[in-house]
C-alpha cells in the first residue's frame, strides 16, 4: 500500500428526508480507503447502503432529499465540497462508474460510438475523427468483435454481455483513476460473468486504476478483490484483506452470509439462515444493529453501538464478541 490512498472516506453519513418527514439513516459513520491500483469489494444485501455510498462518491445523490456529512477525499479533491462544474469534469474522466443494467444505462437512440465519442470529446477535446479512432480502440480492448463496424450499431443490437463491455469501454474512455462497478456481472450468465471478470482483471493490470466493486456475490468478491468491506444496515461491520475475511470472518453477519451460500465441496442438508429482518432504518436500534438476528448476542450488545475495532492488523470488526474463535473453542 502506498502512503496516501487514492480515495479516503471519513465518517460518511447519509440521511434521506422523506416527503412525509421521515428520516432514513441510509449510511452511518463509514470510513473507507482504497489505495492506487487496489480493488475493494463492498458487500452487503439489498438496502445495506453500499450503492448509496458509491452514488455519494460520484455526487449523484439528489440534493433536496439527501443530507450528506463527513468527507470524501479523492485525488486532492474534497468531493462533498466540490462545485458541480468540477464534479462534472471528474466524472467520466478520473472517476468512472458502471452499473448493473447495461440496457438502461445506454441511450437507446444513439449509436454506441456516439456515446463513447461524446465522453471523449467532453473530457479530452480534440477532433471527432481522432475520438472515433480512440472509441474503436477501446471497443477492441474490451473484445468487441470487428469494432470498426460495431461502433455504428445501436445498443439494442448487442447482447447483454456486449452491452456491459461497451459500458466498460465508455468508463475507460478517459483512463479513470477510480472505477466504481455496481453489480457489473449480476445480470449476466456465468460464462459471460467469467469473461467480464477476466476483462476487469486485465484492464486493472494494464491501467493501474483502483476499483470499488459493489456486489452481493461473495464468489465474485473472492475472485477479484484485494480487500473487502461488509456492510449491514448502513454501517461497515467488517473490513479485512480478502484471504482473511474468507478464512476467519470476525463479524457474525459475515459468518451468517458465508454459511448461507451453497458450497460446491460438501452437500449440507440445511444451509445456514439469518433469521429475522434488517432493522427499520428510520429508527435504527440503540445498540448493535445486527443484535436482533445474532446467535451470539449478549445483553451489552443492545445497550450501545459497538465500535469498529482492529482484531488483527488490517482486520476490523464491529462486534463486542470478536475475536469469534474464542466463542467456540
Amino acid at each position, binding site marked *: 500500500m502506498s502512503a496516501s490512498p487514492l480515495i479516503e472516506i471519513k465518517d460518511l453519513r447519509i440521511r434521506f428526508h422523506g416527503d412525509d418527514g421521515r428520516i432514513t439513516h441510509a449510511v452511518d459513520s463509514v470510513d473507507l480507503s482504497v489505495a492506487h491500483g487496489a480493488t475493494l469489494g463492498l458487500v452487503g444485501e439489498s438496502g445495506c447502503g453500499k450503492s448509496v455510498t458509491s452514488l455519494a462518491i460520484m455526487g449523484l445523490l439528489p440534493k433536496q432529499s439527501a443530507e450528506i456529512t463527513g468527507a470524501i477525499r479523492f485525488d486532492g479533491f474534497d468531493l462533498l465540497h466540490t462545485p458541480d462544474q468540477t464534479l462534472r469534469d471528474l466524472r467520466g474522466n478520473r472517476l468512472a462508474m458502471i452499473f448493473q443494467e447495461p440496457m438502461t444505462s445506454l441511450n437507446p437512440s444513439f449509436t454506441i460510438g456516439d456515446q463513447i465519442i461524446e465522453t471523449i470529446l467532453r473530457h479530452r477535446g480534440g477532433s471527432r475523427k481522432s475520438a472515433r479512432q480512440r472509441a474503436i480502440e477501446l471497443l477492441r480492448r474490451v473484445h468487441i468483435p470487428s469494432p470498426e463496424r460495431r461502433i455504428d450499431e445501436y445498443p439494442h443490437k448487442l447482447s447483454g454481455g456486449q452491452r456491459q463491455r461497451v459500458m466498460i469501454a465508455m468508463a475507460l474512455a478517459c483512463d479513470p483513476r477510480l472505477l466504481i462497478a455496481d453489480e457489473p456481472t449480476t445480470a449476466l450468465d456465468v460464462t459471460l460473468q467469467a469473461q467480464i471478470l477476466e476483462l476487469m482483471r486485465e484492464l486493472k493490470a494494464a491501467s493501474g486504476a483502483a476499483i470499488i466493486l459493489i456486489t452481493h456475490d461473495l464468489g465474485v468478491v473472492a475472485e477479484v478483490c484485494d480487500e473487502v468491506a461488509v456492510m449491514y444496515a448502513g454501517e461497515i461491520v467488517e473490513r479485512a484483506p480478502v484471504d482473511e475475511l474468507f478464512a476467519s470472518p470476525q463479524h457474525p453477519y459475515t459468518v451468517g452470509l458465508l454459511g448461507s451460500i*451453497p458450497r460446491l465441496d460438501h452437500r449440507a442438508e440445511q444451509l445456514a439462515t439469518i433469521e429475522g*429482518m434488517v432493522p427499520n432504518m428510520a429508527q435504527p436500534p440503540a445498540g448493535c444493529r445486527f443484535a436482533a438476528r445474532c446467535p451470539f448476542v449478549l445483553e451489552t450488545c443492545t445497550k450501545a453501538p459497538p465500535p469498529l475495532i482492529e482484531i488483527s492488523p488490517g482486520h476490523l470488526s464491529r462486534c463486542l464478541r470478536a475475536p469469534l474463535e474464542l466463542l*467456540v473453542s
Partner: protein
Amino acid sequence: MALLEVKGLVKHFVAERSLFGRALAHVKAVDGVSFSLDAGKTLALVGESGCGKSTVSRLVLRLIEPDAGTVRFEGRDLLSLDTEALRKFRREAQIIFQDPYASLNPRMTVGQILTEPLALHDLVPPAERRERVAEILRLVGLEPRLERRYPHEFSGGQRQRIAIARALAVEPKLIICDEPVSALDVSIRSQILNLLRELQDRLGLAYIFVSHDLAVVKHIADHVAVMNLGQIVEAAEADALFAAPRHPYSRALLSAIPVPKPRAKRSRIVLQGEIPSALNPPAGCRFHTRCPYVIDRCRSEMPQLVADGIGHATACHRTSELPSSAAIVPSDGGFSPVLEKLVAAFSGGPEAVRAGGVSSLGTDPA
C-alpha cells in the same frame, strides 16, 4: 414408472412473418428434448439465457403447446387431454416464478390468493377453507394471522413463501421452480432453499428446478440436464456431473462458477465468442462455434445424446477422446473447523426454518 416422461419435445416460435402471415423465420427454442423425472426427486435444467430451459418448463405444464413430442404424467399423455382433463392435471403440477413481486395479484389479500385455488378445484368445502389456508401458511413458515395482508406488505422472501404456499394449496405432485431464488438476497435465498428441501421430504414433491446458479443447483438437484440452444447436451446425476462434467459446454459452464474462496484452484475455460442465435443455430453440433475441441465432423453432423452404463448421457462426438475433467469444477475448500462451528450457530433445524421471517414482520413503528 416415472412421474413425468418427456420425449422429443419441440417448440419453434415464429420470429418473423411475411405481409400475408406466412412464417419467415423461426426461433428453435426447444429442439428435441427428452428426460424423465421420478416422484419425490429434483431435476435441474441449467444453461445460459435463451437456451430454452424456461420454455421446456412451460411446455411440460402445457402453458404453451409443443410442435412435436410427448409429455406423459403418471403415464397419461398430456397432449391429448381435453380442457376439463387439463384443468384436473393442473392440480397435480404447479409452477413458481422468479419474481415474487410480479406473480402475486396486488389487489388480493394473501387469504384470497390462497383460497382461490381451493375454490377453483373445489378441494375443500367453503366452511373449512380458512382453516386450510392457515394450515398452508404454517407449512411455508408464515403466521396464519398474515392472511389479511396484501402482497406489498411483505418482503421478497416472504412473497416467495406465499407463491410457494399458493402452489402447495392444491397438493401437487410436481412443482416447477423457475429461478425461484434468483431475485432474493443471499440470506433469504438460503431460507427458501431450505424450505423447498424440507417440503420435498415431507410431502414427497418432485421439482423441476430451472436455474442459472450452479452452486444452488448442486445443492438442490438429484439430476441435472445441461441445455444449450434448445437441446440437452449432457444429463447425469448431480454428483456425477459436478465431479466430472463431460460435454465441453458443461465443462466451461462448471469451470466458471465463482466460489467463495480467494485463489481457489481452478482451470477456468473462458468461452470465446458470442452465444449463437437460436434463430439460426449453427449446423452440426450447436456448440461447435465456441467449442475448444471442435473437429470437422462437429460442423456437419449433429451428435446424439448417448447414455453410458450408469445413465450419464452426453451429446458429443468426442466424449471418449477428451482430456480428464476431474479438476474442472473449482474447489471452495469448505470451512475451517472454527468457522464450521460458528456457522452451525446459524443453522437451525427444521423448526427454525419454519419460524424464519415470521416474527419480525411489521417493523413499522405503528
